[in-house]
């Protein structure tokens, strides 16, 4: 075994030994980040409407002693915790947007062992954990050599297509050693690859001069159903793993009026970029043909598209993360990401996504996070940052 390798193992072993004590300390220091979870979580933050939550993040950065936090042109809030050497940096990112609209009542309930409310796991908790890092590191007596770059990124979900994270990475000046995306959900999550994804919206319109007497004439609901049936005929390979999900359908508003328009939302994910390309072509052909045959207007809009990307399972960042999880009593579950991790890996940064605690009813109004497992979840995050800082995760 090479000397460098032995040094790494010794350093890692030293960090792992501290985990049980750290879980305890972090649980004692929990109030501040639980409070931030509630206060940030109660500010509605739909994608493209994150401004108020982002301003609150900037206030918190400042209150936590970080100098000159900024909001960039993409709506991301970021701040630096200077390291003792500052030759390189570690990027920790948590998305600030949520799937819930402003109209949803953003009220978080706090019980003895849990917290509940829309968007608490995805991603108020992740955001609060990221914000808490400077104080937690201080509480744990950890001084990093690298700068720590904290980012609350906007415009991550849905149509936003990782616009915030990609924008930040394009303009980031300091070289980063590695990146971590923080999500509330779910403890044990270990993502080190980004799945190729295509998200689209197919809109079908019945034109105003539509011939209602022609054979097969009907309203938008019947047509959209017919269209879905044709799409379902597209062969989907098991290997490489590929999936087509219909995620939303909007059509009609009453009992007795044939609607004139319908919208279908879908997502294709695949381990093979070519398959995604082929399926996109097939969908376009189906839409064109269906339009011609039925006299309706069918159009497909691709709202988000991203390439497959990955760092190897054997990458020291992944290996170290697994060791830390194991020591913290967390069972790793490899889970390819369709989120911000793609932007990080595609920009050339070794990166992983971690989840912080166990979650129920994810993306429902009664989304619930459990507090007991959270302290191990936070410990894995802090320990991984320290391992990156010590060069243990360098390839």
């Amino acid at each position: 075994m090479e000397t460098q390798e032995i040094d790494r193992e010794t350093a890692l072993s030293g960090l792992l030994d501290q985990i049980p004590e750290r879980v305890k300390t972090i649980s004692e220091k929990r109030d501040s980040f639980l409070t931030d979870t509630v206060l940030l979580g109660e500010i509605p933050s739909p994608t493209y409407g994150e401004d108020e939550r982002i301003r609150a993040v900037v206030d918190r950065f400042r209150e936590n002693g970080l100098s000159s936090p900024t909001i960039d042109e993409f709506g991301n809030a970021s701040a630096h915790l200077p390291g003792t050497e500052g030759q390189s940096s570690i990027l920790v990112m948590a998305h600030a947007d949520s799937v819930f609209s402003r109209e949803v009542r953003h009220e978080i309930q706090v019980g003895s062992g849990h917290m509940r409310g829309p968007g608490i796991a995805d991603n108020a908790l992740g955001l609060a954990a990221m914000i808490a890092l400077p104080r937690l590191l201080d509480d744990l007596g950890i001084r990093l050599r690298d700068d720590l770059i904290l980012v609350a990124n906007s415009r991550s979900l849905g149509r936003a297509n990782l616009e915030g994270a990609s924008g930040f990475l394009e303009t980031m000046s300091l070289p980063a050693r590695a990146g971590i995306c923080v999500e509330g959900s779910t403890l044990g999550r270990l993502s080190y690859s980004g799945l190729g994804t295509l998200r689209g919206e197919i809109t079908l319109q019945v034109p105003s001069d539509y011939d209602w007497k022609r054979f097969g004439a009907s309203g938008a609901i019947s047509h959209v159903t017919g269209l879905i049936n044709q799409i379902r005929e597209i062969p989907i390979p098991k290997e490489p793993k590929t999936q087509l999900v219909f995620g939303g359908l909007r059509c009609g508003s009453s009992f007795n009026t044939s609607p004139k328009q319908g919208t279908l939302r879908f997502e294709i994910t695949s381990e093979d970029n070519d398959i995604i390309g082929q399926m996109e072509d097939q969908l376009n052909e189906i839409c064109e043909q269906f339009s011609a045959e039925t006299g309706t207007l069918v159009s497909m809009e691709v709202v988000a598209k991203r390439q497959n990307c990955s760092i190897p399972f054997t990458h020291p960042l992944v290996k170290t993360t697994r060791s830390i999880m194991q020591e913290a009593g967390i069972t790793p579950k490899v889970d390819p990401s369709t989120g911000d991790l793609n932007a990080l890996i595609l920009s050339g940064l070794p990166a992983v996504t971690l989840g912080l605690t166990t979650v129920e009813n994810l993306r429902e109004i009664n989304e619930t996070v459990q507090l007991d497992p959270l302290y191990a979840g936070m410990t894995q995050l802090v320990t991984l940052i320290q391992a990156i800082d010590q060069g243990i995760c360098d390839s």
Partner: protein
Amino acid sequence: MNKINENWLERNTFHHADFWDLIKLVEEKEKKGLKISLCIPTLNEEKTIGKEVLILRSELMERYPLIDEFAVIDSGSKDKTLEVAKNYGADVYLASDILPEVGDKRGKGENLWKAIHQLKGDIICYVDADISNIHPRFVYGLVAPLIHRDEISYVKAFYDRPLNYSSGLRPSGGGRVTEILIRPLFSLFFPELSHIIQPLSGEYAARREVLEKIPFPIGYGVETSHLLDLYAMHGLETFAQTDLDRRVHRNQTTNALGKMSFGILQTFFNRLHAQGKLDRMPDLETFYRRFEVEEGKYHQLVQEVIEEERPPMIEVEGYRNRMASS
């Protein structure tokens, strides 16, 4: 009188945002050597108490040491109120265990009264347990005027009604009992007190030296009695009020509000009686006073409402003549 009152409204009405600089506020508090206790009276509040204790303690004791003591005083909850409150670090007391020699009465006012004995602060801040959008402003907005201005001894909260934002003009936004009962009563008997925008709000902060000198109704009348008694002792200048923006809480049934009004009326008339106003009724005021808020400014709307009366028809000569001739 109106001129003085207008001036009072300007001088003694605040917005919580006036006190956003908590570092400065804590410095001022320490300079004056003040100790502040926070008291939350509870009865079966497990759904909201956790969040209140977590946020207020974390922000106002740990991050900014504005509060020196944080107590939950409970009337014997059957749910997990005490467990949850304790879990997040509050000092938890049963009202019945405080001053046992005076006995145990059931009601929110009892807990507020016993807090004066149990807690050590020079200022006591009371916050209801059912606020679902709790935020540190609910406390610092109330204690700040007491820290900054020695002549003020009692600070009441008032709130917005967000539904009225779109018009740019919103009414004072009191609850139903405030608008239907208290504001008309104050307009009739204590017009100066009608400058208190939400006299029934359950959030207020006061100096020990005034709290220890007034009686506490244990039920619904406690907020009303505080205003009447302190007004009688010190006049309007002792009060201030702070806009705490939006407060989300339980909506009460009309029956519950009826019961509440009954309790308040008892307190109110007891005081009128004690002040000799029932036996020697003064001329009743004819000005009805309410509020509107426009572009952050508070205006009192004074409207003359004279309930003119007609005599019994039999006393009218024309009527008697018509009846006699028919």
